[in-house]
Every structure is written in structure tokens, then in C-alpha cells.
């Protein structure tokens, strides 16, 4: 079965729904879900952040977004990282 990927914008004090601070994806597989965040290493790394939110953690808000929106956030993070170097 094909993987189903759902993307989420990560929002906090320093970001907003229109300019999220990060992006997380939930990859649905036959066996279960794997969550990955686009990390400061500029790679998709495993992350427990969304699980925490489902358990009541209030640090970040997560809003479901489209793949295109997720790609835009990734591109922005990459550009900002390149600029900072």
C-alpha cells in the first residue's frame, strides 16, 4: 500500500499560520505512523513533537497543510540556513 503523508505547519510564539516556524510530516504506513520534522540539519528527522501535542502538550500548535505549503516552508528554511552561513 502506498504511504500516505500528511503535513503539518509548526506554529509558536515566533511564528504564525501564515509564516510557520517549521514543518512536520506524518507518514502513514501499513505498520503504523512515523513522524518526521524538517530539522535544523536540513533533513527529515524522527520527532515526538506531534505525539506530544496529541497528549496535551501546548508548546507548539500544529495545523494541517498541503504538500505545496510544506515544500514552501522547507524551501524557506533552506534559504535562511544558506543565508546564515
Amino acid at each position, binding site marked *: 500500500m502506498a504511504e500516505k503523508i500528511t503535513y503539518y505547519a509548526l506554529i509558536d510564539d515566533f511564528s504564525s499560520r501564515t509564516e510557520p516556524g517549521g514543518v512536520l510530516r506524518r507518514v502513514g504506513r501499513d505498520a503504523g505512523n512515523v513522524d518526521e520534522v524538517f530539522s535544523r540539519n536540513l533533513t527529515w528527522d524522527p520527532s515526538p*513533537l506531534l505525539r506530544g501535542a496529541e497528549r496535551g502538550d501546548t508548546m507548539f500548535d500544529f495545523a494541517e497543510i498541503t504538500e505545496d505549503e510544506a515544500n514552501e516552508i522547507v524551501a524557506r*528554511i533552506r534559504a535562511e540556513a544558506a543565508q546564515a552561513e
Partner: protein
Amino acid sequence: MRIDQPEPGDPSAPPAPDAPRAPGAERRPAAERPGATEAAAERRPGRDTEAVPDRPARRESEAVPDRPARRESEAVPDRPAQHETEAVPERPPRHETEAVPERSARRETGPAAEAAGRPEAREPVSRADQIAAHLRYRETVSVTLQAAADRAAWAQARPELRAAWEDHKERYPERTRAVPHTTPDGSWSAGEHRRLDPEQNTEATKAHADLADEADRHILPALRRIEAADPDRQLAGLEHMVKGEDRLKEKLADAWSGRPGLNVMQVLNMIPDAVRSTLTYSSERYADGVITDIGRLKAEGFELLKLKNLWHADQYKGVNSQWRRPDTGTRFEMQFHTPESLDAKELTHEAYERIRSNAALPVDKQDLDEERDLENFQRHVNAQVATPPGTDRIKDFPEKPNG
């Protein structure tokens, strides 16, 4: 609040709905009273004859002042919850109508009342007010009975839930977890993806000590004052009020990883639950209690940053809120629970720790079978937790744009 029954012969005693009216008191046929019988029928179909004023004369004897004194304790809606639930179910239903949740709604007027020297007793009380008071009382009884049933259901389910968790642990023995540690160069790590460099580790260590100190000297005393304002609920979880140092660093590393563009102190300062406490309320008093205590926290000078009503969630039940001390910017978390939702949280805590640990592992090392089982366990436990009445009045903050 205790409502005393009148002494036999007390002229100020509230009359039965059919008792003779004092001069000037309104008396209209039931059919002319808008909504009277309809409202009663809506509350309890088929029992409206008990609620409407024109019930048969035989009921008078049930409501007159010289009924046995033992009925006093049965008719008090505001006494402590555990007593209500013990007493109310034993009462024959007909006695519900005898109880007076708000005396003011049934005060009588007339010379006798004046003689009693109570100026407020001269105020006329409309039939609509009497009926409204009666309906409020019925609502109180209904909520109390439901809460007792919910508590009993949870108590009955708990052993099975506990056994289910033991069964899970047998099927999935705990795997070796990455042990958090500080290396000789001063950096910190816990597994492959959780790392802090020496400078970050030093900042996190100092922040943890500062948080513990602030919790002890400022936050806890304020919470104690709030707790003392109402004996009907209490603080819980104080033994874990400050998150462990390594757990704080794990959370910092996870959040910092997913938050490019911020430095470690910015992320550290956003962690809401390094200091955490819980207030628990009986189901009957939950919604009003939470709303009142949010006001008390504000009155203590704390700033509400975020509030999430999670009673609709499937893996966790309760209300979690994030607060800040304006003086220092320090955040802390307040959770609002019923005893049952807190018990469910504690019962699933180990499951959540396993989920969190598993989710932080490299993808090829994650055990997705166990993770699915753990989530199902959390859902199963929380499905047994009854939602208290009125939780829809506890609004998220900031409120979502779509409400």
C-alpha cells in the same frame, strides 16, 4: 451551603405549590403560565405533575414544614459531593420536589413573614421563579446522579485497564532506552538525534536550577493561596512539579531540532511545562471550578498564554494551560482534571513515555506495532473517562478563528 428546613410551625416556611396563597400572591391556572408545564415535561417526561404548582392536594403533606427532620440532610444540594451521591440515590423520587435549592425562590409573603422580621421575606415570588428554582434543583440532582454513576463506572473499569497495561508490558518488554549523559567535553546527548553542545548544555542546566528555585519561591506559594480559596478541590502532582533535568534537556533537544531559526534559549524559554501543577475537581464542580481558578490565577498576576480544552481528544482528557510570570517571563503549566481524568493520565503515562521514546528513534528502529498498540491503549483508557458537564464553557485561548 446548607439549607435548613423550617421548624414545625415556622410561619416563614416555604409553602407547597398548592398551599394556600398569601394575600396578593399570584395565582393563575397552569395553562396560563407560559412554559411552566412544558418546561417541566421537557426535563422529566411523565413526571410533570410533580413539578407544576397544581399537583394534587396529597402532595401538600410532603412539603409542609412539619415533615420529619431526617429529610433535611437529603434535601441539601450544595453539600460536599460525596455526601450528595451517597444520599440522593436512596431517596424516593417524589422527595426531589421537596428539596429547595434556593430558598429565596420559595419565600412567602404576608403578615407572618413580616412578623418573622425578615425584610426580604416580603418580596413576592412569582410562580415562574418557583418553577425555575425547582428545575434548577432537578438539574442538580441529575448532575449528581450522573457523576456518581460515572465515578462508579471508572472504578469498575480501572482493574481491567490496569490488567491491559500489564498485558501490554508482557507482550512488549521495554526496550533499552538511550541513557541521557554528559560527555567529558560538556555536551549532552540522549540517543542519536537528541544532542546539546557544551554551551547549550550549560545554559539548560542553569535554566533548570533557576526554574526549580522560582517554582519553589514564587509559583508554588501562589498556587497554595489559590488552593486555599476553595476546599472542594486540591493541587496534585506537586512531587513532580519541576521536570527532571534530563527530561527537560530531551524536550529542549526535540523542540530545538524542529525549530530552525531560533537559538536554544529562545526555545528553552518557550517550554511551557518545565514547571507544572494540577488542580482536580469533582465532576459536578469541574467547569465552574476551572473557570473560577483561571480568574484566580490571573488575580495572582499570572498571564494566560494558552489554554487547550482537550475533553474532545481521544488520547488525553482534561484542560491544559500555559501561564507566565510577567516579572521573569517564566512559564508554567496548569492542568485541570477530574480525579478520573488524572487517574487516566497517570495510568497511561508509561505508555506515553514509550511512544515518545519510540518516536525519537531512527525510523528503521521504531517499533510501529507496539506504537499502534500503545495509542490504542491510551484511547481505550480515555474512552472510559466521562466528560464533566459544562466543559464546552471552557474556551480555548487564544480562541480558534472558527470558534
